């Protein structure tokens, strides 16, 4: 009996699933018309940062190239010109290239960098029509004087440069100077992102216990 009714209802069972899903909130977004807020520690495209005075942070030490598991970074240093220094030290990154076709976005370069010159942004849209274009040169990687990363189509309707300047929580958490629960103006001056930063919440027990103490 039950089997008979069950068989009768069979075709409608599928509809039940459809109906159930139809009234649930939608996950699909109308990308690219609608952008998602990316996680704070998103591993996006690299940028090369500057100090507030405009000096480049990169000193051409090649540690990023040395640590890169995909061997996608090529750096050459050079003697810093005394009369027009590019970076604060003796040496500066003369050539800096990242082959983003090879890059696996592991972020080891960011960890290796002693001056926090290379950091990762939230930028992920960099499809190219020519393989050579996937090799980002220093000109493209280096942020502008105000900390804004260079973008291939900065005027594109979908490009939110402000988002690119957002704090890079992951970098902050792994950098030697920073902790995930850091709050305030970072000591290492603007990376991708300027000004005050809120603490990342819920990163560790330490943070919570410290909060309790406070």
């Amino acid at each position, binding site marked *: 009996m039950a089997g008979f009714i069950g068989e009768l209802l069979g075709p409608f069972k599928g509809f039940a699933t459809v109906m159930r899903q139809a009234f649930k909130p939608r996950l699909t977004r109308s990308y690219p018309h609608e952008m998602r807020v990316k996680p704070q520690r998103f591993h996006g495209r690299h940028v090369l940062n500057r100090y507030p005075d405009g000096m480049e942070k990169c000193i051409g*030490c090649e540690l990023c*190239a*040395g640590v890169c598991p995909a061997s996608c970074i090529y750096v050459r*240093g050079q003697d810093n010109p005394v009369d027009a220094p590019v970076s604060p*030290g*003796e*040496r500066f990154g003369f050539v800096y290239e990242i082959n983003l076709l090879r890059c696996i976005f592991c972020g080891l370069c960011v960890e290796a960098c002693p001056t926090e010159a290379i950091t990762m942004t939230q930028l992920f849209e960099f499809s190219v029509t020519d393989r050579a274009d996937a090799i980002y040169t220093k000109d493209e990687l280096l942020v502008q004087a105000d900390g804004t990363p260079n973008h291939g189509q900065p005027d594109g309707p979908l490009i939110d440069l402000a988002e690119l300047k957002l704090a890079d929580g992951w970098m902050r958490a792994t950098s030697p100077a920073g902790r995930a629960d850091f709050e305030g103006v970072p000591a290492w001056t603007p990376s991708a992102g300027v000004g005050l930063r809120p603490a990342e919440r819920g990163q560790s027990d330490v943070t919570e216990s410290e909060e309790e103490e406070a």
Partner: protein
Amino acid sequence: MPEQPPPEMVTISLDGQEIEVPQGEYIIKAAEDQGTYIPRFCYHSRMKPVGLCRMCLVEVETPRGRILTTACNTPVAPEMIVDTESAVVQKAQEGILEFLLINHPLDCPVCDKGGECPLQDQTVAYGPGESRFVEEKRHFEKPIPLSDIVLMDRERCILCARCTRFSEEVSGDPLIEFVGRGNQTHVITFPDEPFASYFSGNTVQICPVGALTAKPYRFKARPWDLEAIESVSMVDASGASISIETSQNEVVRINGVDNDATNHGWLSDKDRFVFQAIHSENRLATPLIRDDAGDLQPASWGDALDRVADALGSVRGDEVASIGGANNTNEEAFALGKFLRTVVVTPHIDAQVGDALNPEFLAGVTPRAEIGDLDGAATILVWAGDLKEEFPTLFLRVRHAVTQMGAKLIVVHPRRTGLDNIAAEKITYRPGEGPEVVRKLTAQGDQDYGAVRDLLTAGPVIALVGLTGRAEDPRLAEAVAAYALGLPGSKVLPLARRANVFGALDMGLAPTLLPGRVPVKSESGRAELESHWGPLPGEAGLDTAGIIAGLAAGDLKALLLVGADPVRDGRNPDAVRAALDAAEFVVSLDMFLNDSNQQASVILPVDGFAETEGTVTNIEGRVQKVNRILPGPGQSRALWSILDELSSRMGGQLGAGDGPAIAKEIALVAPAYRSMTWDRLEWGPERDGVVMPDRDGVQELRFVPDDSGLRPTAGRLALHSGRVLYDGGTRNTQSPALAGLTPDPAVYLHPRDASALALADGQEVDVAGEFGTVRLRLELDPSLAEGSAYVPANLDSTWVLGVPDVVTVEAQSSKGKKNEKKKGKKKGAGE
């Protein structure tokens, strides 16, 4: 190797282990030989210990209890108990490292030493991990240039005194020193006196931190992305071991490798920085063919080789001659010799460009000394060019033998040399009067040179014999060798300058020699070679002078120039140029355009140093392996492969398909090289090189030098055409770091000669010889023999003079510019 009695062994206890070590050895060395590394900064095995850095502290059991002492200057004694790992030692090591780091900037990411830095490595291994120093570090101005090549960062310096000791003890030009005291001590040059040493690069290599850096490598690469390969320096023929280090297919630096037999790890700056020429933009990258209009045009290899094959095939074999091949590997030289003797069929082959010694003397004089014999010598006789200029690493070995091993040194030269200040005796003679000096030394009754003769009675005597200058008669060297071989326990080390000239001669690139030190005259030797190669010309060929004359006279029609520039190196530049013009066909196989091959019909680009693999032979006859680490530029090819293809186009069969195949054939047909294989030189104890002949090798050529009764030449102002290290040669001028170091051209006169000619110091003068005239500045040089004029060879303006026996020096002729003339006159009048 020189015979030395085995050292007495003593037993000591090292970290609880009984070990046998030679008596008197320092603890640090004894421990290292047993595999226990004691950390150190100032200690260097090739220099005397100073105990400055205190890093090598160990505990030693003494009657007074356990004491901390430096392992670098404490010799082992029987029953000594040494502890290198005790808590006290570890505490001391941590302490020393913390002390060293309090004033050492932590700019490792910027520092060129970062990644290969003894201070970094030992801090990781033995350091405290964290510094408790919170104050500001000591500051100095960041790098200050010590010389045109070397920069000094005093903040990074840990005052180990390696550089200052090197320049004082090893190279003998103490131009840098500690100044200040306490915390403010630093290393610096004397005011207004740059660190202009031929050996300054060594201080950069031995610096245990990044305090000393050399411009050519500065910020070029990081140690971890360097690829390195061991090889041999091709600057001179002393066979200095090096490691060639590249980054991204570019040679970025060369470091010395400690080879007990040759260079002790030291290099001259030319050895070290000449690699820049490899990447010169002037390197030839494609074959060039002269078109109908007379211009050189890039061409394909096929066209170029066809052109050469046609040209060489259209003349009789013995109308073809070849000059050069002394800068190539043994394998290339062998292939060239075989190509010329069996495919072209000509005996007119000369690797030396007419400016050196008799090939039979160079390849066949016995007993031939090894460089290591210098250390056991009682007396060293140097009758050759200024070693400091021509053989810098050999110069250091002679210095070591004299200053450290107690040998007495006699220098015979027309002018001051780099060795004079350590020489027991110095004989200065006018060029051309060498035979007279030999006669006086030989004649027992003669009053002159008594002290020299006395010294020479003490054996063993090692005689370094070569040409003192280009104008000297090569037969003088043979007379000197003949005299030297009569001295007690004597051996002769014949000197010729070009990188692999000894290898080239051993491979038969000489009119009188066949491969493996077999004279062409030798019926049996030739017969044996003919059994492999087929019939060969039985007559000796023409040497370079003969070839030039032959070309001019039209007897010879075609010429191969293999890395040779006979115009610059020739006795009479104009005559050589005329001969090249007269030749029907000239093909040049070279890395660069030069004064000789500008007029060539075809120019083929060849791979050079660091681009070819093979073996080379040094002045001792020591064979060492040179290695390839990068491809040649553009379409350039290895010499053997060019010759192989050329011979197949000419219908011959060279069998020079690859390097190893040639090496095997050398071992087969060259008697002196019979048991030589590449494997032997690449692995194991023979990596330092093997002196030929060894094992099954036999040397057929026994050249007995003879005093041929050379007459002293007369004439005012005999020319001394001595070589300088940084000359106008192609490699030097193509290396930016070295090009600027070339001395200003000048003519040097003894002050008395100058005053006899009414000439003043600094005056512009015309130096005229048989072959040309040059205008040079006059400098007075009291060290020069009277009656002679010294003109440095092969500088950009001096080579035009050629090599006449005598020159005249006179005040600038009236053809000169008016105001200059006035100036000269005024000066003359004023004095």
